[in-house]
């Protein structure tokens, strides 16, 4: 027994030299994990700003637990008072009642504060996280992934919340109760107390051993749950495809595999716990036996009163729960520490340094010099150089996966080139203050990104948009008829992922969003893909009319609509193959001619359209 005690005792502060010192050490057993894990950011440091609240919280909980400890003592006194025919029964009853009311008030008080503090911390932590994330750049988000940030903001914050709402008070008050009971028992009858208190290390150590085993299992359980969730999420996001292919059975078997694993693991965890509970129950029963036999012996020999005997029984029932609580809390603390470590990773991520200070009205000259961009291992752009004159129209064409979209991301400073530089009006893009830069560059993304708000808010997404600018953008994007036909007009709320809109409508809303900021430069990413030819022609004509002097850079597939552009850039597998006007490229670039040929059969109709306008 004492051998077992030594190890945990070492890591603990020296216990006071009372008879209680022996059994006190092992409390370090289950309680050790919080103290024994110095690595990572300290969870308790998180509570610093709420110090006052936490102290009040602990104070209230100590008072309520302290009174609670006194109750069995009172009961014992009551029994003795009766057996000794004393007449202070009334006083004892009133004391008891007063104590019960006290416990009620203080318990409620600390629980309310506990809720308040934990929710406050969770809210503040979320706000801090969101604040941090919002200051990051696109590269950060690509690196960290939005799925992980979602976990940080929800599950991780929840586990810290749980730490505060359950662990902090439970941990300290459990230690308080265990020590308190031990002291009380020792003052009543130390020999008997020794027997009873002996159960603390037995239960504590068993629990600790089981928890270590279970923790590893919990970790794999979490992984399986993540896997389960991934299957579920993809089955929700890919719902339409699954129904077209009728692959529900396939999804189900994927799911079943994960679910069966989860079941198996759940049962293993259960088995481990199943070995723990009997030990606890049996040990505490043994303590009961000790009280009955040894205590009975003392009472028979008139060495102990019957009231004290009762008090021992009552204290025993109060003693077991806190031991278990400490064990469970060490689990919660471990989880919360892991969560806090992940969160700290985001919180401590350095702010991207905003070096740019240049605020200037853009003319629209763009120049790329030897720009190289790598994505993972792969070079998506290799030594790309070209110039775009202000007010001109430039098209970028090229096959799938040529690096066209990446090029646009560089031009909007969403990503930074690994080599080379980009200049606007002769100044490096890095020198520009991003806010003022973005206010002048409109970008229509390839994928439909519609927010779950009204059409008005979707279009006037940038704050600087005036009513007039918005109306002009709507008219230019040929959205007026569509909007007017809606029952709520501009205030119609469009849903997440824009499911209630057609592909072309989403695309046009996104164009209007970009135009509404009255940009000096407009970047289009495959804008024409989902818009019919007629609308496209109208829209481009509108843009020319309503936004004179605008520099246009358009990634596209369709040669017919860019034949009159000042410059066409042909991109293939990250390399710039050729650049020039349509007629120059037709004369010099076989790849361009090939693309042209692939579309030629339809150009006849496109021409017809142009003439009919």
């Amino acid at each position, binding site marked *: 027994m004492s051998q077992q005690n030594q190890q945990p005792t070492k890591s603990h502060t020296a216990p006071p030299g009372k008879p209680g010192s022996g059994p006190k050490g092992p409390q370090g057993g289950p309680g050790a994990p919080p103290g024994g894990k110095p690595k990572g950011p300290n969870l308790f440091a998180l509570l610093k700003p709420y110090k006052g609240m936490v102290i009040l919280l602990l104070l209230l909980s100590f008072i309520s637990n302290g009174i609670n400890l006194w109750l069995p003592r009172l009961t014992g006194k009551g029994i003795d008072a009766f057996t000794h025919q004393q007449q202070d029964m009334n006083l004892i009853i009133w004391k*008891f009642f007063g104590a019960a009311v006290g416990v009620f008030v203080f318990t409620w008080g600390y629980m309310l504060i506990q809720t308040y503090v934990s929710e406050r911390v969770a809210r503040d932590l979320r706000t801090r996280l969101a604040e941090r994330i919002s200051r990051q750049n696109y590269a950060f988000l690509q690196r960290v992934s939005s799925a992980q940030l979602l976990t940080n903001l929800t599950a991780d914050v929840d586990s810290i919340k749980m730490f505060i709402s359950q662990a902090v008070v439970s941990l300290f008050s459990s230690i308080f109760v265990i020590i308190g009971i031990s002291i009380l028992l020792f003052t009543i009858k130390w020999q008997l107390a020794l027997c009873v208190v002996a159960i603390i290390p037995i239960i504590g150590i068993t629990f600790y051993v089981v928890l270590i085993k279970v923790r590893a299992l919990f970790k794999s359980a979490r992984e399986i749950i993540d896997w389960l969730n991934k299957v579920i999420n993809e089955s929700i996001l890919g719902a339409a495809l699954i129904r077209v292919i009728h692959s529900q059975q396939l999804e189900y078997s994927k799911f079943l595999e994960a679910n069966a694993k989860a079941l198996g693991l759940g049962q293993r965890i259960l088995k481990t716990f199943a070995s723990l509970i009997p030990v606890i129950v049996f040990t505490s*029963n043994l303590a009961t036996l000790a009280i009955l036999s040894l205590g009975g012996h003392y009472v028979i020999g008139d060495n102990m009163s019957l009231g004290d005997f009762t008090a021992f029984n009552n204290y025993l029932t109060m003693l077991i729960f806190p031991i278990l609580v400490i064990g469970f809390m060490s689990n919660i603390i471990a989880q919360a520490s892991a969560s806090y470590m992940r969160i700290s990773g985001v919180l401590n991520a350095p702010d991207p340094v905003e070096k740019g200070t240049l605020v200037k009205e853009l003319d629209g000259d763009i120049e790329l010099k030897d720009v190289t961009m790598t994505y993972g291992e792969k070079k998506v752009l290799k030594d790309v150089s070209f110039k775009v004159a202000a007010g001109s129209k430039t098209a970028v064409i090229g096959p799938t996966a040529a690096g066209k979209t990446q090029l646009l991301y560089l031009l909007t400073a969403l990503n930074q080139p690994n080599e080379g530089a980009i200049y606007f009006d002769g100044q490096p893009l890095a020198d520009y203050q991003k806010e003022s830069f973005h206010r002048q560059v409109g970008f229509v993304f390839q994928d439909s990104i519609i927010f779950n708000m009204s059409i008005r808010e979707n279009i006037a997404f940038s704050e600087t948009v005036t009513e007039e600018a918005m109306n002009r953008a709507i008219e230019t994007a040929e959205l007026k008829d569509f909007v007017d036909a809606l029952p709520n007009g501009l205030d119609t709320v469009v849903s997440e992922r824009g499911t209630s809109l057609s592909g072309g409508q989403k695309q046009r809303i996104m164009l209007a969003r970009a135009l509404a900021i009255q940009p000096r430069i407009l970047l289009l990413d495959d804008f024409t893909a989902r818009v019919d030819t007629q609308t496209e022609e109208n829209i481009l004509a509108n843009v020319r009319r309503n936004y004179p002097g605008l520099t246009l850079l358009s990634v596209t597939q369709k040669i017919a609509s860019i034949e009159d552009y000042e410059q066409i850039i042909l991109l293939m597998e990250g390399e710039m193959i050729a650049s020039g006007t349509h007629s120059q490229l037709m004369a010099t670039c076989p790849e361009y001619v090939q693309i042209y040929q692939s579309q030629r059969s339809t150009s006849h109709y496109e021409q017809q359209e142009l003439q009919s306008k």
Partner: protein
Amino acid sequence: MSSKNYNLNSTAGPAQKTAIWPALRKLINLLPEQRGRLYLALFIMVLYSVLTMLGPYIIGQTITRYIQDKTHRDFSAVLRNCGWLLLIYSVTLVTVYLRTTLMGGFGQRLLFSLRNAIFNKLQELPVAFFAQNKAGDLISRVNNDTDKINQFFSQSLMQFVASLFFITGSAIFLIALNWRLGLAALSPALLMWIFTKFVSPWVKRKNAANLKSTGAMSAEIQESLGNFKVVLAFNRRDYFRKRFAEANTHNYSTAISAGIANNIYIPVFGFLASMGQLVLLAYGVYLITTVHFEVGFLISFFLYLSYFYDPLRQMATLWSSFQLAIASWDRISQILSMEPDLVTLPAAEAAPAVNGADGSAAGSALLEFSDVSFHYPDGKEVLRHNSFRMEKGKTYALVGPTGGGKTTTASLIARLYDPTGGTVYLNGKDIRTYTPVERSQKIGFILQEPFLFTGTVKENILYGNEQYVNYSDEALTAVLQQSGLETLLSRFDEGLSTKIVSTGDGISLGQKQLIAFIRAVLRNPELLILDEATANIDTVTEKLLEDILRRLPATTTRVIIAHRLNTIENADEIFFVNGGEILRAGSLEQAVDMLLQGKRVS
């Protein structure tokens, strides 16, 4: 036969009440074959409780007879009784182990079945369900709410049931020992019951509200983070902050209310339990002085009372997690109660099979729309009384302005929706009479928004393909070569084994469309619908795709929706879809004319 409302957040009436017992029964009914196990577990629990209850009785007896009573003090008798107790405790040891494994095992299995049931239901529900609910909200429901139930099952259920047995057992012993004192000591429990009865609907409401706002918050985060590049490009970092702050603050206030509600039980229960002890002390002492009642039994009484009130107080702690689980269960049962509306009709209930318009057998008409109308649940009308036929082996194009109803028409052909009026015939038979397996074999549909699963290119192109599923890379490459699909794979760095992350940015939209194309063509359908399936693919590659389409078997019918005219110029027939009408355009020139003149009605 109207299109159904699947919106989970609108079908939920204001704070509907779910009684606990029916909810539990419904849960347990998920596992009919485990009933025997459950009964065995319950029996073991009863046994365990009875054994535990015997302890205080023997202790009380011992104290009364051999310790307290000064004339009969007998330590050897005390030791003898201790021996009996030890025997009982040893048996208890076994029952404790059994009850944990049996009851816990039941909980785990129940959870397993529950997850299966949810997933099955999700798979049964039609596209309309997913279109009407936010993906974020659905995911939160399925993940978080199952997790809440999981927590209850794996951590609290056993204690919960054990507590119930303890409470009942000790109450019986208390009343049996001395009914007056027993009833008096138990009376505060009645107050607990009344209190719980009054308070728990409020607690449940608060928790439901909190769960809802948590779901809304995670949907908000998902939307903002998913669209972060727009947030950046339009200088709206503050948008993210603001929207999030709103959701966060709302969640905070609902969480505080829920916390206040959840925390009301413990202090109240604790106080009432103390009142029980107080009553026992006062009334017990009174009884001892007036009636014949021994002090030893007073000690047993205190033990029983703690067997009664301690589990009750524990239940107060568990109650909130129970309430949470019930609230989660409510949200999940909402999904479980959704009925799929696209059932396969028996031939008798379907519209009669059609013969060709001229009275001959259906002949070569593969697909026919007969007086088909469609409107969404919100009343937005998309198609009005349309009839047309599509024949085997031909290529059809659907053109028209955006929002004109092309995708809806295609969705009706693939029976992702049922028309709200009229009938769609496939091979002369009501399309609703085909089983989903038959239908999905006959009809291939390349969706406008390509979706890929996390995995490899190979896994994605063979997704749901039973024919080629076990093919090696070489065998599959040979198959791809035959249909000319192999050249498309050169667009991927590592060919078939290129890694794909479902929601990642690693591959372009055009590449995604290529995979979706290969996936659909490999399935070799009788009718292949391409809904702007090549919109983001360059024209040179697109030419390749056209060749591949041309090389499909002569009987394959193609339905192509596209904006690019070159994609549709080889169509045998062109339909112009706009303003609720599907019109035959005759020639390409005519179609162009219609496009030019056609006003957007939508």
